[in-house]
């Protein structure tokens, strides 16, 4: 196990290095930089600014500087916002986290409940309905469903605000502030839950179907145990256990924000920050964000593999 972990960690670091170099080169390849986009500057001033930001140096040299600073916990300075990238991340990431954690909670809750019921009543009309709904949820174009619900629930029926985190010009504090945020996050949470619930329900349904067929469930029933107890204490526990391996895969989604949803709902999260910086070619920010997701993905996969072993001791790593 420990040699496996050591090997794995070394490999992770190498892959991340290679990924960072590749991403850096790709961002550098995208012609035009933050300065050339600004039409107010004279050519002399532009050259001067490039000198200051080090944009006129060769790509590899810039990469070396970036990497060295990254190792010292400094992801650079955002060109468009004139703030350290890490400060900006810290400022925006928690908004993303709030959205992600609430919708993940609802996604799992709904998926477990519906998945278990559908599995218990396999091939019933309810099960068929759930299967169709699962496929519908898995086939939704995220940006379209976002726009569609904004149009209906926010624009036409005026039930919910169309976007943002607070009403413009609001200076609510305390409980009023919380209420306003909850009001604003309802719609994006609905959409994110919708988008995630399909595949997860399907996962729990098929897990539960496998478990219900096991001998120990028959034994439990033969002993005269109440059906509810058989389902929820014997079956559900064993159906849920493999799901802990999914926890690791949720990691990038929890902290990495959602580019599309945050953009559509104008939610001040890290995903929207990325989308805004993308057109500005604010490469320290873009680079930092992309690497953040890459690191979270790699760590998440590792956590999943380890949890897989915890859940099933027969697995050897």
């Amino acid at each position, binding site marked *: 196990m420990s040699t496996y972990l050591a090997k794995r960690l070394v490999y992770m670091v190498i*892959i*991340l290095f*290679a*990924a960072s170099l*590749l*991403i850096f080169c*790709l*961002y550098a*390849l*995208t*012609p*035009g930089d933050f300065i050339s986009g600004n039409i107010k500057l004279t050519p002399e001033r532009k050259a001067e600014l490039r000198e200051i930001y080090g944009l006129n140096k060769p790509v590899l040299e810039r990469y070396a500087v970036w990497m060295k600073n990254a190792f010292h916990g400094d992801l650079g300075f955002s060109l468009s916002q004139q703030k350290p990238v890490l400060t900006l991340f810290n400022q925006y990431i928690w908004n993303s986290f709030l959205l992600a954690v609430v919708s993940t909670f609802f996604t799992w809750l709904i998926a477990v409940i519906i998945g278990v019921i559908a599995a218990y009543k396999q091939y019933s009309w309810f099960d*068929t309905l759930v*299967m*169709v709904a699962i*496929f*519908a949820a*898995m*086939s*939704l*174009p*995220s*940006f*379209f*469903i976002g*726009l*569609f619900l904004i*149009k209906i629930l926010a*624009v036409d029926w005026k039930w919910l605000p169309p976007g943002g985190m607070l009403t413009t010009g609001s200076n609510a504090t305390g409980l009023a502030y919380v209420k306003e945020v909850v009001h604003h996050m309802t719609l994006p949470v609905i959409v994110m839950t919708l988008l995630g619930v399909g595949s997860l329900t*399907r*996962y729990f349904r*098929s897990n539960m179907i496998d478990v219900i067929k096991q001998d120990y469930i028959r034994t439990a029933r033969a002993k005269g145990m109440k059906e509810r107890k058989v389902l929820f204490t014997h079956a559900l526990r064993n159906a849920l256990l493999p799901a802990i391996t999914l926890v690791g895969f949720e990691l*990038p989604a929890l902290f*990495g924000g959602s*580019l*599309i949803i945050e953009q559509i709902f104008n939610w001040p999260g890290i995903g929207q920050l*990325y989308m805004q910086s*993308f057109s500005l070619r604010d490469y320290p920010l*873009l680079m930092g*964000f*992309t690497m953040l*997701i*890459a690191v979270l*993905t*790699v760590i998440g996969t590792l956590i999943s593999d380890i949890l897989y072993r915890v859940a099933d001791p027969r697995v050897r790593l």
Partner: protein
Amino acid sequence: MSSMNAELSVNKQASPVPVKSSLWKLSVRRLLKNKLAISGLIVVVFMFALCFIGPLFSPYTDNKIHMAMMNKAPSLKHWLGTDALGRDVLTRLMQAGRISLTVGLASMLLSLFIGLLLGAIAGYYRGIVDQVIMRVADLLLTIPGLPLLFIFGALLSEWKVPTDYRMYMVMLMLSMINWPGLARMVRGQMLSLREREFMQAAVVLGLRDRRKLFNHLLPNLVPLLIVIATLNIGGAILSESVLSFFGLGVMPPTATWGNMIDAANNMIDFQERPWLWVPPGLSIFATVIAINLFGDGLRDVLDPKQKR
């Protein structure tokens, strides 16, 4: 899962040749019983027919600008209304569907080709080739997909790729993102297949590599590949629509379902003229759900032991 596959392929190998064709017949018969899968297939066929044959019956295919017919709501003359340039939305929807469906299909075929080729080589030859291919796949899987697509999209814009060619570039981009996952799966299957008894028999018989690969190994992958390929088309159509919606995929005047929804970025179109952007969104949704239902039906038939 591997032991189950072992059973499956052993059964297949043990059966004499005439039974093989009836296995396919049996699969078709079982598929026909699956109502959800068949309704999915019907919708897919309908969407293809609508997009590829439909425009032939439309009087508005010239895409000319009609100043008098700007932004008209749906009517008998224009079933889905007209856009800001007076073009018929239904006709554009069908023409856009041609591009979206083609991009989805073609990028799936391309990523399947690359994934199968590299995965098979890696799994069959192992050693250093395997190492190189799989490390590249790992690298591409580590980099988040959407930002990578955005970078490629931005590169296309900056290199001034003509709009006619962008469609092909988008196919390439999507395949670049999709092949590593496929290669990994094919490699895993190859690794388990090559240890089977029938492969030992093939080695004993002294068959050439090419024959072993094409006559003995790849046919065993076909059912799995058909399923994966079908489900991948839906994903590719969704990815293309996201890219085109953000203006980084296929660009106007070439219409795709994704860039038609871009009309929603205009406040007035979004609020007052839903006929501009709702139909393409529903088309994407209907097509992808139909493809996924059909693909899932295929999976039940062709690869029943596969864990969902």
